[in-house]
C-alpha cells in the first residue's frame, strides 16, 4: 500500500522512557506541526499526496479497529486524543493531520454520507471516534444550511389561508382617542380627578378627629409640572 509517511509519523516517533530519579528533564515529544492546509482544507483533497494515499476510495476504507476475539466493539471510541496522548491506531480522520473537518470541504463530508439514503454513516461503520463524529455531524448540518451540500427537501403543500390581511390582528387598527391629541393623558386617572362632594364629606366625617382644620379638598399640584 502506498501510505505516505505523514500518516504514521504520529505513532512511530520514538518514545523516551521516563527516568524517575534523574535530575535532567525528560525530552518531551515536539508539538505536532499544524497542517499546511489549515486555511483551505479543501485543497488537500485535490492534491497528489491525497491521491497517492487514498486513491479513489473514501478515507475510512480499510480502517479496522484492533480488538480481541471475532466480534468487533459495537460502540465507537470516545476520542483519539485523550489528555494530550494519542491512542494506538487512531481513527481515519485523526490519523491524518491534513484532513480537517470543516463545513467548506464538501468532498470530505460527502464521503461520510450514504449516496443512496442520504443519512450520515454510523461511526461504527466508518471507524471514526465519537468526538470526530460529533464535529462531522455539525459540519454537515452547517454545510446543508449554507447550501453547499445537498439536502432532501420535504414536500410542503401550498398553504390555504386568507391572505387579505383584513382581520384586526394583522390589519390596521385606528389609534386610541388619547393618542390623537398629544396633550391628553392616556387614561383619565393619570391626572387628578376631583371626587364627588358627597364622598369628600363622608371622608371628612369619618376621619374628623384626625384631619387638620384647613386640609384642602384638592391637593396642590406639584411644582414644576
Amino acid at each position, binding site marked *: 500500500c502506498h501510505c505516505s509517511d505523514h500518516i504514521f509519523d504520529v505513532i512511530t516517533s520514538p518514545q523516551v522512557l521516563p527516568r524517575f530519579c534523574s535530575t535532567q528533564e525528560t525530552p518531551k515529544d515536539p508539538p505536532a506541526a499544524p497542517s499546511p492546509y489549515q486555511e483551505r482544507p479543501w485543497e488537500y483533497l485535490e492534491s497528489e499526496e491525497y491521491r497517492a494515499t487514498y486513491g479513489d476510495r473514501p478515507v475510512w476504507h480499510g480502517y479496522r479497529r484492533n480488538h480481541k476475539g471475532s466480534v468487533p466493539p459495537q460502540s465507537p471510541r470516545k476520542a483519539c486524543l485523550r489528555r494530550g496522548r494519542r491512542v494506538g491506531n487512531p481513527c481515519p480522520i485523526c490519523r491524518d493531520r491534513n484532513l480537517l473537518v470543516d463545513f467548506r470541504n464538501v468532498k470530505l463530508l460527502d464521503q461520510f454520507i450514504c449516496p443512496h439514503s442520504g443519512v450520515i454513516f454510523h461511526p461504527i461503520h466508518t471507524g471514526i471516534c465519537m468526538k470526530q463524529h460529533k464535529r462531522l455531524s455539525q459540519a454537515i448540518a452547517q454545510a446543508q444550511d449554507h*447550501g453547499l451540500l445537498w439536502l432532501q*427537501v*420535504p*414536500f410542503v403543500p401550498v398553504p390555504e389561508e386568507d*391572505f387579505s*390581511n383584513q382581520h384586526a*390582528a394583522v390589519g390596521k387598527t385606528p389609534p386610541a382617542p388619547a393618542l390623537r391629541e398629544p396633550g391628553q393623558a392616556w387614561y383619565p386617572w393619570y391626572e387628578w380627578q376631583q371626587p364627588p362632594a358627597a364622598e369628600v364629606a363622608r371622608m371628612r366625617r369619618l376621619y374628623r378627629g384626625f384631619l387638620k382644620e384647613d386640609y384642602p379638598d384638592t391637593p396642590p399640584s406639584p411644582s414644576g409640572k
Partner: protein
Amino acid sequence: MAALAARGTAALPARLRPLWALPARRALAAAAGEGKAAQPKPAFTDEAVQTLLYKMTGLDLHKVFRPEKKGLKPPHYKLMTEAQLEEATRKAIEEAKTKLIMPPVLNEREPIDDVLAEDKILEGTETAKYVFTDLSYSIPHRERFIVVREPNGVLRKATWEERDRMIQIFFPKEGRRVIPPTLFKDEKLGTVFQQDRHEDVLNMCIAQFEPDSPDYIRVHHRTYEDIEKHGKYDLLRSTRHFGGMVWYLLSRKKADGLLIDMINRDLLDDATSLITLYHMLHPECQSAKEAKEQKLEGVDLIKVFVKTESQREGYIQLALQAYEEAMATSSAS
C-alpha cells in the same frame, strides 16, 4: 407508455382551483381612468390564466414521482392487468395534479406598526420586552393576536417577523425553522444556483416563508432571474413553480428565452399559449392588436410576435426554421 408522458391536462377540476384566490377587484374597474378600456388587468388567479399556465407546466409523471433519498427498503412488485394498470395511471395523474397546484403570487405585505396603548407609568420597571401570544388552538394564524410590551411602556402589535417567529415556536410547522437557513441570503443563493438546485430552493422557500413576505418574493425573483439568465427553463417544467416563473417573465416582457426553449423542444402548443397569455397581459402592444384583428392561430401568432415585440428576433427565426425543416423531413419520411 404515452399516458405516462401526458402533456397538457384536461379542464381543471373544481377542487384544485386555488382556494387562496383573493376577492375580485371590483373597485379597479370603477377607478380606471375615463379614457381607458373597461377591462381590468388579468390577475394570476383568473380561470383563463390558470388554465394556460397549467397547460404550459405539463405533467411528466416520471419527474413528479421521481425517487427521493430515503431509508432503503426492498423493492415492491405488483402484477396487474391492463385495466388495473390504466386505473393506477389515472390515480397517479390525479395525485400529480394535486402536487402541481401553484403557490400564490401576492404583493408584499404592509408592515404592522400599530400602537395599542402607552403606559408611561410602566417606564423603568422592566429591562426586557414581553411578547404576549394568543395560544388558542382553533384560530387561524392570521387572526392570532400577538402584542409586544416594550420597556418604555408602549404596547404595540408585533411586527410580521416577530409574528412568524412566535407562531413557529408555539405551533411548529414541518420544514420551517425559527431562524431561516443561511442559504436564503443573497450571497449564498449563487452557490445553490450553480448546483442547479432551483427547484429545491423554491420548495424550501415555500416551507420557510409566508407567500406575502418580502423574503419569499425576493428569493423567487432571484431564482427566476437566474433561470432566465442561463436558460435553464426545463428545471422547473412539470413542477408547481413553472406557472409563477412564466407570470414573472411575462409581466416584465422577457418572453424571448422561454419561447426559444419551447420551440427547440418542439412544444408549439405551449409557445402559442405563451403568446396568448402575453397578449392578455399586455393588450395594448402591437402584436396583440394585430392578432386580434386578423384572428391568428398557431405559428402565425408566433411570427407576428417575433416581428413586432421580441428582442432576439434572429434566434427565434432560426429556431422556427429548424422546427419547420424537422417537421418537413419527418412528414416526408
